């Protein structure tokens, strides 16, 4: 399957349905991890929506990424419960360990660090999520272990 066909298939699936632009963009990001320019272009053609309108939407919503993120996306919850229980210190530790800031990826494209508002696991605060796996009651001391776990996992996947 060529790069472009994903977007054209998605466009074909959603073209006839109402209010479907955001759903189509979600599908592309689910598959590719972000919304590449070419895919946005194909959606524009396939769904008959001006490219400017697509970028208007892409840049409005926090969820959409315009650049390829690292393989493991680390989401640190900055909701109120997590804030009260000191997740800011966990975030600092991730920044220090990875040497990157919020919303950035490491040079080797291994990790992407982002803040999310609330993942709804407040009972386990402070919480962070890595590629869908949730870690509860995280302390700054756990950070290195979490990173190592994912480094190993990503290395295994390669093999």
């Amino acid at each position: 399957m060529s790069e472009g066909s994903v977007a054209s298939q998605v466009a074909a699936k959603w073209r006839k349905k109402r209010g479907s632009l955001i759903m189509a963009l979600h599908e592309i990001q689910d598959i590719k991890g972000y919304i590449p320019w070419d895919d946005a272009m194909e959606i524009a053609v396939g769904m008959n929506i001006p490219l400017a309108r697509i970028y208007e939407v892409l840049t409005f919503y926090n969820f959409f990424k315009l650049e390829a993120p690292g393989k493991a996306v680390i989401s640190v919850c900055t909701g109120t419960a997590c804030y009260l229980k000191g997740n800011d210190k966990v975030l600092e530790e991730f920044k220090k360990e990875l040497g990157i800031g919020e919303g950035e990826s490491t040079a080797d494209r291994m990790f992407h660090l982002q803040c999310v508002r609330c993942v709804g696991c407040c009972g386990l605060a402070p919480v962070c999520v890595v590629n869908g796996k949730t870690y509860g009651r995280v302390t700054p001391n756990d950070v290195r272990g979490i990173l190592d776990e994912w480094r190993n996992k990503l290395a295994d996947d390669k093999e």
Partner: protein
Amino acid sequence: MADANIDKRFDIHEIAKEKNKDLERFDCNVYICHSTGCKSSGSDDIIDIVKSALADHDLEGQVRIVPTGCMGLCAQGPLMRVEIKGQKDVLYKRLEPLVARMIVTEHIAPALKLKEGEPFEIPEFLAQHVLSLDLPFFTKQEKVVLKDAGHLDPEDIQEYIAHGGYLALEKVLKTMKPEDVVQEIKKSGLRGRGGGGFSTGMKWEIAAKTPTVDEKFIICNGDEGDPGAYMDRSILEGNPHAVIEGMMIAAYAIGATEGWFYVRAEYPLAVERLEKAIKACKKTRLLGNNIMGTDFCFNIDIRLGAGAFVCGEETALIHSIEGKRGTPRPRPPYPTDKGLWGKPSCVNNVETLGNIPTIILKGADWFASFGTETSKGTKVFALTGQVEHSGLIEVPMGTTIREIVEEIGGGVPNGKQLKAVQTGGPSGGVIPLEYMDLPVCYEELKKVGSIMGSGGMIVMDETANMVNIANFYLDFTVDESCGKCAPCRIGGKQMLLLLEKINKGKGTKQDIADLKRIATAMQKASLCGLGQTAPNPVLSTLKFYENEYLEKVGEGKKDNSEAEEK
């Protein structure tokens, strides 16, 4: 099944009968919490282990494993409830793989061999994992919306039907006129649970009376964006069919042709369960044409949010479903007049719709027997922060904050003192210690400068600095402001700059006065609820804890050290 009588397969009474027969085969039900919280603590592994341990003991035919929605006490997860015929239920907390296996070998297996009525003594090494069901956390609650969450498999429509599901829909479709449904809900006194507190019955009445040439929509607002709140997620994960049934009843009452769920993309499990539930409804012919053999035709679709807090505002939400930027527009016209694609639309919150089936079945009077004069029924809260039993709770309106925090929540841990409780998220305010005996209802909370909100309740202990808290919330709303109107876009930013200045110890008394002035302007001039309520956390902390602000500005730079601490 034989195709002698096709209709039988879609008759909910037949389905319930079959399912109940099936369920009676089991002597023991093991309910394992399978919501986001407990899944994060490892409940998937626990399910596998219990399964294999049951197989080892040849108990698969006798014991049923039920993955359920939220049981409430998220902080103690993974949770598992063992229900054996003729014996008292036992709830286990903080399960680990080894413990889960031991529960099968040392509790379930021997207990099943006992004669009926013979009591079973839990072995001592398991007793430390037992969570007493007599805790005020469980006994002080009153569950209406959450009554089935934790008691049934949310992914099994037959089980929901066996629990009396879709009976309310049947009652409505077969015995009530749409006007009767509207009147019943109006009489119940149910008010919008998303925080607005507008009478649901009244909203339906307006929507029902709005004429339309072709379409009318019912929309479920599941864009729960308040940081520290997860009521709607838990309801959708724990019992999606109740919300769907509520939406179908609403659709019948107002004459809607199509329903839309708008759910946050950050809640993948809730979305997945909702998708499965809708699919199951279509298969059981509870959605589609001529539902239950009547003239009622209805379909439901899901649209996802994409991480914008402002989309919880109904006009912004409608723009987002249409595939546009989620910016609000002035009201009127209200969505009930001009909503989705310009057609009349009624927007209801997840919890509001979740209440509907029970109100229809048990009656408006029953529902109105809970609560206060003006706030009826129950309210679900996400009780979080510095509290012993953090979790999801449901209490009758009118319960005092003290009862919630100290009895149900078990108070503040680590020997610290309670300082304040925050409700309403970034749109709400703090409630100081002297108001702990305030009953929870729309009016009372407003009187002290907070709001009911959607149900976030955050407990703060003595270490919380109120200027920092105000800073935290304002930082959130400034970030989430859509930028359409100037009061919110500029006012919020200026307030945040002042707060940061004060927090750094560089502020003056004039800055505090300016904060108040900008706040008033924002409240009056902002386009939507986000901007109008954004100053609330600042104003309410200023009202009750002005001394903390004064401390920071009083001596100028001297307080630099304090600004560092959390």
